């Protein structure tokens, strides 16, 4: 059991020691990085993607306040994201109509306020249960709000949603936020602020008790804490930050519609947070960046990118439940012990069979796509520059060979990797870097 805990990259003393150092340097570096990114990635598409990543980071971090920090699995976090977007849009429109001297910069606050308000409203009822029941309740609430949004057309604008114009508010420094780069800087500023605030929360007594309630809510009672209150406060603060993310989204798209409440939206943030790693603070940041990038890139390459996402998610749940961040942190002691390069070599050997399996699987999936409902359009398809028919026996045979051969080789290589891992761990253990 101790091995499982040490090697699965769970939230460990590593997290507390990061906090203890509290280096201002990291925040300054992050600020510089965010400021400098547009200078490297100059194109319009890149700027849009960076903006989306910024929003996704805030959303995912807010989600992890529930999942990773307090152990609450929610399937309906998009409610607060969507409500934040709608309230921001209405706030902007109201400010324009009433000619109020409020700059666009402050508008995400309306989103945050909405997220907080509704989290308080729904939170007490939601947090009456924990665990699986809480997850189901969050799903039910999301459906309730999503369906209500189609009924209450005056506020939610029906299927078309509500639009706004972000350039019409009070200008600061002659920025009207028309160009995407200006929107990016707005998002980046709020992103940095949100990250800092959410990180600071983890260092408070409340934040520590969230972790305690996650680990053992019964014991938390026996040290004087009401777990429901802890969860409720976490729920409210998490809703607030989700609302801020929603507000930024509404500014970015100049639109708020009911798709924001959808199960897809709630599912995406769960995917991003989990794949990034729920057990570490930076996990959701990694996940948000990766998932946003893949979403935008994959949807150009294949029609069934969502299937790939689902499979990636299942693979993470089964083989790397600590997510990307967990995998990286797991190697921390080994890197410090200087044993990382040998281990990476073993990984490289494993990479080849895994690549074979991946290519085989992609082949099968893409061929199925062209044989299924799309067969009406003809079964010729193109992959890696080669055109062929989805019905060809050769293609299917090739896919099968790739899957079987890759799978078999992977099994063999796995033993080497496991042995290499044990050796590397041994080295780290000798140097006292791990237990």
């Amino acid at each position, binding site marked *: *059991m*101790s091995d499982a*805990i*040490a090697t699965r990259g*769970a*939230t*460990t*003393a590593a997290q*507390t*020691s990061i906090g203890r150092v509290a280096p201002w340097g990291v925040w300054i570096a992050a600020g510089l990085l965010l400021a400098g990114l547009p200078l490297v990635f100059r194109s319009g598409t890149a700027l849009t993607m960076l903006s989306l990543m910024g929003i996704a980071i805030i959303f995912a971090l807010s989600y992890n306040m529930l999942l990773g920090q307090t152990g609450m699995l929610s399937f309906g976090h998009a409610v607060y994201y969507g409500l934040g977007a709608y309230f921001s849009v209405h706030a902007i429109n109201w400010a324009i109509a009433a000619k109020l001297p409020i700059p666009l910069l402050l508008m995400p606050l309306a989103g945050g306020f909405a997220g907080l308000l509704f989290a308080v409203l729904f939170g007490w009822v939601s947090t009456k249960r924990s665990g699986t029941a809480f997850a189901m309740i969050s799903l039910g609430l999301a459906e309730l709000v999503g369906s209500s949004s189609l009924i209450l057309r005056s506020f939610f604008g029906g299927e078309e949603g509500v639009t706004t114009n972000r350039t019409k508010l009070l200008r600061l420094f002659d920025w009207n936020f028309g160009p995407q780069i200006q929107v990016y800087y707005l998002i980046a500023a709020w992103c940095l602020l949100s990250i800092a605030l959410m990180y*600071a*929360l983890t*260092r*408070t*007594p*409340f*934040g*520590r*008790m969230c*972790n*305690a309630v*996650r*680990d*053992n809510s*019964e*014991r*938390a*009672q*026996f*040290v*004087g*804490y*009401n*777990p429901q*209150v*802890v969860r409720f*406060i976490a729920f409210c*603060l998490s809703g607030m930050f989700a609302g801020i993310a929603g507000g930024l989204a509404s500014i970015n798209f100049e639109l708020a519609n009911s798709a924001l409440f959808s199960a897809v939206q709630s599912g995406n943030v769960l995917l991003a947070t989990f794949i990034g790693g729920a057990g570490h603070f930076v996990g959701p940041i990694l996940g948000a960046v990766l998932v946003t990038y893949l979403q935008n890139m994959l949807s150009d390459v294949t029609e069934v990118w969502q299937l790939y996402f689902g499979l990636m998610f299942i693979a993470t749940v089964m083989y790397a439940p600590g997510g990307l961040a967990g995998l990286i942190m797991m190697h921390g002691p080994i890197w410090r012990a200087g044993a990382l390069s040998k281990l990476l070599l073993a990984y490289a050997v494993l990479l080849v069979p895994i690549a074979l399996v991946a290519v085989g699987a992609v082949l099968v999936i893409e061929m199925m796509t062209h044989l299924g409902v799309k067969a009406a359009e003809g079964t010729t398809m193109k992959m890696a520059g080669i055109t062929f028919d989805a019905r060809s026996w050769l293609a299917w045979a090739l896919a099968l060979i790739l899957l079987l051969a890759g799978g078999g080789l992977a099994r063999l290589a796995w033993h080497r990797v496991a042995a290499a891992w044990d050796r590397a761990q041994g080295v780290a253990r000798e140097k006292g870097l791990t*237990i």
Partner: protein
Amino acid sequence: MSALPEERRVRVAALEARGLRKNFGPAEIIRGVDLTVPKGERHAVIGPNGAGKSTLFNLISGLLLPTAGEIRLDGAPVNALPAYKINRRGLSRSFQVTNIFPKLSVWENVRCAMLWSTGEKYAFWRSVEANPEIAQRTQQVLSEINLIARKDLPAGVLTYAEQRALEIGITMAGGANVILLDEPTAGMSHAETERAVALIRRISEGRTLLIVEHDMSVVFGLADRISVLVYGEIIASGTPAEIRGNPKVREAYLGEEAH
């Protein structure tokens, strides 16, 4: 003859149970327990397996609701209170099956146990390290339970005996006046048990202790008074000498154990 005013003043017991009953469906587990533990006393509860000792602890600490009867902490009734409220009134307990925060570090485990009593409560607007007293007290508790060297490790990787020590540390960190320990030395070697007993004696100085134990040397070495629980009823209650000499107890329990 009239009594002196000091003697007439009623001494409120730290912990008191009267007519306590607990049924699980048709099964009666606790069948009318009367127990009084005065302030500052070290009181042991012994009895054969299945007597209901853990159930008794669960009732007193608020994990279970009594079917009938009353429980008083410092004179005030605490029957229907949830566990966290009873804890805030100054009663703390340990568990027979180690119940710690496995992913938090040892330091964090102990620190979390004192956040409420030091007034931090649900504060999310200041750092947990703002109050230096908390770090001091955590350091103190950790040195008491001899886990300073392991303070940064996740609690889940400690050895069994270390976890039991941490369990006791969490129980006492909040400064509770009434401490309930549920088989604290279970599974420990002889040397570990001796250390644990010394620790328990230190931490229960000036506090009220209620301890469930199977190890008779621990019981007779530590307790001021002993109660014997058999099939949900207390068949005898008194000083160690009285209990040792009690024929009912010998028949029901002491004759079976090998110490």
